């Protein structure tokens, strides 16, 4: 088991190195430091201005190791990223790490409840749909799912703000407050939007999983020994379906830290998602680079966690 984890992690490290290399190619080789500076400062910026800017951001070295083995951007990029020294934002020179720290809390306070709530809503719903398979409820459910999937998230957000926030006055239209008393109020609308907009594909996915599991032979066995439908659904089907569900969930956990880009910025939640949007709008390459890197890191960890969690749910899995 330990050997397996180590091997798995080692591959993960390889992947992270690969990601870093891709990032380097994207942000330094394709878009050379001169380009970044020019993007930040304008196309016709005089060379001296560019130089100073590059110095301030540590971009004033040769790109590749063979140009200068001691001092080059590639090694520097790896060294900084791996030591979590993310440097300054290309847009406003603030330290990126501080902003990530500050944004993590709001992001998590949105995404964690969102994940839990999505599961709590989608799984029972899809169980119901799967339970009533081949009836009008199933057909209607599937149709509604496709319908729901065909609506752009933007429309969901705009609609919810308009309807629930403005017309019905249930919750604040937007905003954020980290105090425990106020948080639920602000999160209500983003959570509703998040859950509803994902519901279509979620329910469809879980329904497929449940149907697949309920066509298995052991379900027939359970029926043959006289188990009732609800017991079969909850005791046998759901329990086996936990495997694909868990994969999906565990894999999603790392991304909770990344926040939700659309929802955060529409509802004014000062998390990593809004930060990313701000970075995009400001052509802030260094922040964006950092976010992609962190995302990949989390993804790799998530994959290892998924593999390990298989062992917990599925007795058939053993780690060699």
């Amino acid at each position, binding site marked *: 088991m330990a050997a397996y984890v180590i091997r798995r992690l080692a591959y993960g490290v390889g992947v992270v190195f690969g990601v870093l290399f891709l990032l380097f190619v994207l942000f330094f080789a394709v878009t050379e430091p001169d380009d970044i500076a020019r993007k930040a400062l304008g196309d016709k910026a005089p060379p001296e201005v560019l130089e100073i800017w590059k110095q301030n951001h540590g971009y004033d070295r040769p790109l590749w190791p063979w140009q200068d083995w001691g001092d080059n951007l590639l090694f520097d990029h790896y060294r900084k990223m791996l030591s979590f020294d993310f440097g300054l934002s290309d847009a406003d020179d603030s330290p990126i790490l501080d902003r990530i720290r500050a944004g993590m809390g709001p992001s998590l306070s949105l995404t964690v409840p969102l994940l839990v709530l999505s599961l709590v809503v989608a799984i029972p719903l899809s169980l119901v749909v799967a339970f009533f*398979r*081949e009836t009008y409820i199933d057909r209607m459910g599937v149709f509604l799912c496709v319908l729901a999937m065909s609506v752009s998230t933007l429309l969901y957000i705009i609609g919810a703000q308009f309807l629930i926030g403005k017309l019905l006055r249930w919750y604040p239209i937007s905003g954020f407050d980290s105090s425990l008393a106020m948080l639920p109020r602000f999160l209500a609308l983003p959570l509703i939007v998040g859950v509803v907009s994902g519901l279509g594909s979620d329910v469809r996915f879980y329904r497929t999983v449940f149907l697949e599991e309920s066509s*298995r*032979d*052991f379900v*027939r*066995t*359970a*029926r*043959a*020994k*006289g*188990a*009732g439908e609800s017991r079969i659904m909850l*005791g*046998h089907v759901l*329990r*086996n379906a*936990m*495997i694909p569900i868990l994969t999906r969930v565990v894999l999603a956990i790392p991304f909770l830290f990344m926040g939700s880009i659309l929802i955060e910025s529409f509802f004014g939640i000062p998390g990593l998602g809004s930060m990313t949007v701000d970075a995009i709008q400001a052509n802030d390459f260094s922040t964006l680079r950092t976010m992609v890197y962190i995302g990949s890191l989390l993804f790799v960890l998530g994959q290892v966690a998924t593999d390990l969690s298989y062992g917990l*749910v*599925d*007795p*058939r899995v053993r780690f060699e």
Partner: protein
Amino acid sequence: MSALLEVRDLRTVFPGEGGPTPVVDGVSFDLDRGEVLALVGESGSGKSMTAFSILRLVPKPGRVVAGSVRLGGEDLLGLSVTAMRRVRGRRISMIFQEPMTCLNPVVRVGEQVVEAIRLHEDVSRADARDRTRALFAEVGIPDPEARLDAYPHQLSGGLKQRVMIAMALSTRPEMLIADEPTTALDVTVQAQILTLLRELQQSRGTAILLITHDLGIVNELADRVAVMYAGRLVEIAPRVPLLTEPLHPYTQGLLRSMPARGRPGEPLPEIPGVVPRASEWPRGCRFSTRCPVRFEPCAETYPAESHPAAGRRVFCHDVERRLPSEGAR
């Protein structure tokens, strides 16, 4: 004394392109207490569907549309879902062909048997577990205590089938449906399982509806044999006469193609052609497309039942022709 199970004119259909397609079509037979009746036929002949129809487990969208299934005089097809659930596992148990997939892979095997017991009897978990341990020992699982906590994938195919049998017998049912119980197993294991089934059947007096395509197994286990072809019963008879002097051309073909009967050095004779699909069944005798002795009425009308001897029933125009007095009745 009436039979334990009386199946009459059972008809099960699946919706198809051109209307409902029958997979079991007018099947009738009895099963006495403690008797082993083998249901024989090629794959697709409807024997498994007959079994599922008895337990009302026909997979959707198929359904039983006619006939009756009486267990001890009570029509199972008329029972409520809840009442039917009390029949399944308690009065009629079933074991399946694929022990690998028929056990829930994420639940310990002991637990699965315990569930079967506790579904029907109000016993504590501990008691149920004790009973399971005893059952495991009874079905010949070595080291039953340790095996209780094993997961299905940790057991061999033979052991899994023993677990299935233990599960099926856990509530002392009057009747067991065994659907190709040995097909998926190694030859040596097959023999063990058959022996086990025979022993259990004798010690407990459980009636068995044995579904198989293997006449060898029939020979070893069955008291009577029912042969099915394309959803229809073609011949039903006690084991010995059926195996020694089969009457229906299909039964004859089936027997001829058994390896044990062939002579060394000669190719096994086989029945020409294939079983037609349900949508392509002829109007008359279902076997008429492949029958070596077919004549005019065969393709047009379905043969009536003939009783060539006591306890024997055949559905064949040729037999009818040769037994005019019987056929006229």
